[in-house]
């Protein structure tokens, strides 16, 4: 038997893909304390446990809400649908939120939203560092250059769109309490890094739309013009100031984004 076939057979045994596969006896030796099947089972158990552990670490609030047994079962099902394809185990959970949208739990339809929020936090935690721009950089454009200028945002910033109140669930679990019942409420949540710490906050709908437009490279004049209602101009400038103060903006480009 060639190396590739040996590895294929062992992989099938140790990852639970062994339905119809030859037994371990022809592949593995028995020895002190354990027979071939039991030895394969040691690896199978570690495979399941390791992937469940890494999901629990990257989705700590989800794990707290579901409890060990249910989280473990979820991890096993997810691993079957999305086996890890990246040598970095930290990337294993990147499909969990979309998978949960396709496999919604009847009692907790908000699991996917909570996972989406937690994955964004996990990514932002180790995103590339950047030196943020300041209000002075924006002021330096002058009145004439402002409208045509655009913003470039720091890498450690995400905008998460949820259909349930995932932020309230996250907050309750963070405080060590039980998760509130799922509540359907669409929201946009910004996730960013303050120093080394990850923070998130819900954005008003108008600010979320403005942020998405600015992130696409729209000129600031267009971004602010899209804001409506009394005091829109003042609110727009306050919004830009808050983006700068929170360290979201890495650079200000005088005329259109850098490509």
């Amino acid at each position, binding site marked *: *038997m*060639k*190396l*590739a076939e*040996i*590895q*294929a057979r*062992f*992989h099938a045994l*140790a*990852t639970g893909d062994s339905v119809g596969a030859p037994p371990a006896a*022809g*592949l*593995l*030796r028995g*020895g*002190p*304390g*354990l027979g*071939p099947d*039991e*030895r*394969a089972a*040691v*690896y199978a158990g*570690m*495979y399941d446990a*390791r*992937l469940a552990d*890494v999901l629990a670490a990257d989705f700590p609030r989800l794990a707290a809400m579901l409890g060990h047994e249910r989280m473990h079962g979820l991890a096993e099902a997810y691993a079957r649908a999305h*086996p*890890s*394809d*990246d*040598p*970095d*185990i*930290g990337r*294993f959970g990147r499909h969990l939120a979309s998978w949960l949208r396709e496999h919604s739990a009847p009692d907790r339809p908000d699991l996917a939203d909570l996972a989406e929020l937690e994955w964004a936090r996990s990514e932002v*935690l*180790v*995103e*590339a*560092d*950047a030196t943020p721009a300041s209000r002075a950089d924006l002021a330096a454009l002058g009145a004439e250059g402002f409208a045509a200028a655009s913003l470039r945002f720091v*890498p*450690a910033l995400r905008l998460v769109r949820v259909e349930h109140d995932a932020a309230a669930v996250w907050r309750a679990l963070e405080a060590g309490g039980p998760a509130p019942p799922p509540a359907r409420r669409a929201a946009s949540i910004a996730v960013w*890094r303050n120093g*080394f710490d990850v923070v998130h906050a819900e954005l008003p709908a108008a600010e979320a739309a403005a942020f998405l437009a600015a992130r696409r490279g729209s000129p600031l004049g267009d971004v602010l013009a899209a804001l409506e209602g009394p005091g829109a101009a003042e609110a727009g400038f306050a919004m830009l100031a808050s983006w700068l103060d929170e360290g979201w903006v890495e650079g200000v480009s005088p005329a259109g984004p850098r490509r």
Partner: protein
Amino acid sequence: MTGTRGRRIATREPAGLAPRTRPVNPIRPSLGHGVGLRAPHYARWLETPPRVGFVEAVSENFFAPGGRPMAVLERVRRDVPVALHGVSLSIGSTDPLSETYLDRLASLARQVDPAIVSDHLCWGSHGGRYVHDLWPMPFTEESLAHVVARVGRVQERLGRRILLENVSSYAEFTLSTIPEWEFLSEVAARSGCGILLDVNNVYVSARNHGFDAHAYLAAIPPERVGQIHLAGFSDRGTHLLDTHDAPVASDVWDLYREAIARLGPVPTLVEWDDHIPTLDRLLEESARAAEAEREVLGSAPVPAARPGKVHTA
């Protein structure tokens, strides 16, 4: 039981398998005794870093470009030599080596300038799927040629020598024909890589498979050993599990002393990756390794861990 299952194999270097450029970095840099760089200790490393011989970082934990982990590593490496220890190279897999992985590792190595780059003599991927575990190799001539060729490619890609570590195992393949210690030694001899000798793994595997741990140590070529790992295991009754969640066992300390008596001073790290204790407790365990080395070799070892000592260099 001693290692008589497989036939002995001659040390040779077949044409076409050796790397074109021999790595020049030393197999065994003089580092003393170190500890692992683990997340629960990040604040301490930033605020009052202890004095240690070296720090070992799990390579993959620092593939991400920024945030606290990279800031800590950058801070630590200013004062302390760093060893990069990978877990996902999958050197023994029949999958192609991951170019993405090698790019990330090479980039990290350029940034960190590590004293040692290591991974495991194992495989952990198949059909493009990563299992994030250290699965044992079938010890055959085919495996040997396969691993040697891949080590050569990795060393060329990184422009440096790597060390490969023996793993704890819970299964042996019926088709294996070469004792593990001979396989490991031969990989090192043919590829030019060094050996990261995990003494705990030798002990765990010896108990799990019934071979003689002392014979294993005696078969390892001293000149190829660049680093030693120690760790704690869990006794599951039917087998020992390499859990890295406990102090080093007394039998493993005995084996370590035996190894040091044969090898001389070797950079040694105590791994503790689950139920991670305080950094001071970890430093105590590392200091114990330094003390064992001093007992065996009869002279003051090179820089050892000093619990609670603020580094002022």
